[in-house]
């Protein structure tokens, strides 16, 4: 099966197999290969099978699609072809082993340490690696959009404020001195529930001294919150709202 390997300079960012479904390439997040870069059109090009051949079609993109350096509109691809889109390269391959070998090629320059000896990447290698990682980040990050502000709105119960904007890694609902949502009253637990922000900026609610419920369902394991969810715990009702 043919595969498309998306690269930025020497870093391999992504591999996509081309099966029956065509693979579209562009800046818009609904493409099969997303390249989030201003030089790329929203729907830039596509790769698909036709009569047993692998085809590449440029959708009339502003900055063009290049195969082995030549600007193209519609061409047949063969293994080894290099498709240039903006500063990114898509290498066509029919090998399944590409990933492992490419990795070794990329890393062989680094001094391989003695078994079990921990070492630090030396400065030059580390810069190169961080640069590659930054390039990956460029395509992995969502398109810059509006700021999302996750908020807890108090619907019912006694708290120190009527709403809370969530910015912390750990948000505690309870009587604890470090709680964000401070519960008032004598018999309230120190930590009734917890809300954790994960690295992808999603929010998960989990139990603490109490088992909270979300939309009426008890939560015993960390559960992702969606905008509009109503949380009930220790006599308070909070709505999780993500505002733009």
């Amino acid at each position, binding site marked *: 099966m043919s595969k498309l390997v998306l690269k930025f300079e020497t870093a391999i960012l992504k591999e996509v197999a081309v099966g029956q479904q065509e693979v579209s390439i562009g800046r818009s997040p609904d493409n099969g290969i997303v390249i989030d870069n201003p030089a790329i059109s929203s729907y830039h090009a596509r790769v698909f099978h036709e009569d047993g051949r692998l085809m590449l079609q440029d959708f009339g993109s502003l900055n063009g699609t290049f195969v082995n350096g030549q600007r193209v509109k519609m061409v047949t691809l063969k293994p080894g072809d290099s498709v240039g889109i903006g500063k990114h390269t898509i290498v066509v391959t029919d090998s399944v082993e590409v990933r492992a070998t490419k990795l070794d090629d990329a890393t062989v320059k680094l001094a391989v340490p003695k078994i079990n000896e921990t070492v630090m990447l030396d400065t030059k290698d580390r810069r190169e690696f961080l640069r590659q990682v930054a390039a990956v980040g460029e395509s992995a990050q969502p398109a810059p959009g509006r700021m999302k502000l996750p908020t807890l709105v108090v619907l019912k119960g006694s708290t120190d404020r009527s709403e809370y904007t969530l910015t912390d890694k750990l948000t505690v609902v309870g009587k604890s001195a470090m709680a964000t949502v401070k519960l008032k009253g004598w018999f309230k637990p120190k930590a009734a529930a917890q809300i954790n922000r994960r690295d992808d900026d999603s929010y998960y609610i*989990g139990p603490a001294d109490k088992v909270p419920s979300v939309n009426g369902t008890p939560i015993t394991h960390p559960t992702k919150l969606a905008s509009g969810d109503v949380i009930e715990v220790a006599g308070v009702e909070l709505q999780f709202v993500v505002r733009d």
Partner: protein
Amino acid sequence: MERGGSVMEVGARSDTGRVRENNEDSFRLAPELDLFVLSDGMGGLESGERASRLATEITVTHCRDAQADAALAVFGKQIEGVSDVCNRLASAIRLANQEIYQAAQASDGKSGKGMGATIVAVRFLEDRACIAHVGDSRAYLFRDEQLSQLTEDHSFVAEQVRRGIITLEQAGRSRMQNVLTRALGVEQNVDVEVTEELLREGDTYLLCSDGLFRELSEPQIAGILQEATGAQEAADSLVEQANHAGGGDNITAIVLRYAPKAAGALSKIGRWFKASEDAS
């Protein structure tokens, strides 16, 4: 109030392992600060040992100084989204980084070359655990019979896995496992990664060096934490099992068990703490 009756039970053990000649791991327990620190030195011979000792000592000292003098300057930039305790911990580690860096620069030629250290530290306050780390020493949380890794290694392979460049399986076979992307003492400044977790009754936190998790799988670690009756027994057993599995590197484990008071009595170096009384 059920939280009022719990204590932090502490167990710790460090071992050279069966291959290395010296132990470059260090740890410090500062229960009076609810602070626990582990470091894995690198650079070989004295420099690795020295780097990890500096890392743990300076981290504890800075937190202790800040406890005595709240106005003590926070070293480096404030990290948003985490508590002051977390920021103090990060400050302490940045300071340790500079000390090790200077020590490495000052030692002439060979002896300071490659000198560096990883660090993982946890500090408990009120309702939470603040965790900070640099490098590939890890913090785990064992809760409800499930083990979760709280820290992401700052290593070449771990970063590649995170970016989707290689799979976890490929990472396990990689020759690059020992290559770090962040460590203390290598550059003048270091990025400290911090996170916070809710502290719940029954939680067990584990800090360990790579010598432990390279030898034991997560199910094995979970099994040992599950079976041990006390924190010290758990730490001993983890180190013994890692040695049994090969002991290819120095092995260090700190086990912190937040348990009802009765269990604390079984501890060898356990200590009452956090018996916070609540009006309710």
